[in-house]
């Protein structure tokens, strides 16, 4: 019973994903207003040749801040988990 429920729900989910894959924009021709602005202006505004680094550290700095927080939390969790095992 549980197996059948899993399989049926998965088939529906996969079908929805495939339908979405066909309804999305054609591969190789994305809508790109924001990215065209970044590609055209990144050298003048940030002075960096590498647009990806400019996006990571300048246009989307908050993302990188959150990512650094996640990395810090994961490291803290791993170290804390194994330090307590050593003392016990």
């Amino acid at each position, binding site marked *: 019973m549980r197996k059948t429920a899993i399989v049926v729900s998965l088939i529906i989910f996969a079908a929805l994903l495939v339908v979405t*894959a066909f309804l999305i924009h054609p591969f190789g021709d994305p809508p790109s207003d924001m990215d065209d602005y970044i590609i055209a202006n990144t050298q003048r505004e940030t002075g960096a040749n590498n647009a990806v680094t400019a996006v990571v550290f300048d246009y989307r700095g908050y993302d990188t801040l959150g990512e650094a927080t996640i990395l810090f939390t994961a490291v803290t969790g791993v170290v804390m988990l194994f330090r307590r095992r050593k003392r016990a």
Partner: protein
Amino acid sequence: MTGNIPFNIPFVAVAALISIAIYIIISQRNLIKIVMGISILAAGINLFLITLGYREGGVAPIYTHAPQDVMVLPVPQALTLTSIVIAVATLALMLSLVISIYRHTGSIDSEESRRMKG
């Protein structure tokens, strides 16, 4: 529609990867296999972001010795960079938790460890 690749094949590959990952996560009971499923899910999402930002005939969005002006979109690549680091960090944390569960309960079966409340 591009000339060489019809039917949005890369997006179908993304759908297949994500479906396989979800199937692994909800059907397996071995915790290591569940972690592998989550890792495959992260790989599928990275592939989705990269294919989302591909522009036909584009080069990497870097102006140092750039051969042409047509470039792929930079924002999905930056998001993929973020996503990869987060995937590595959470993978390390999940594996540490699995090791800890194994030491407490002596098993990496999810049902077993739920029952023992170790």
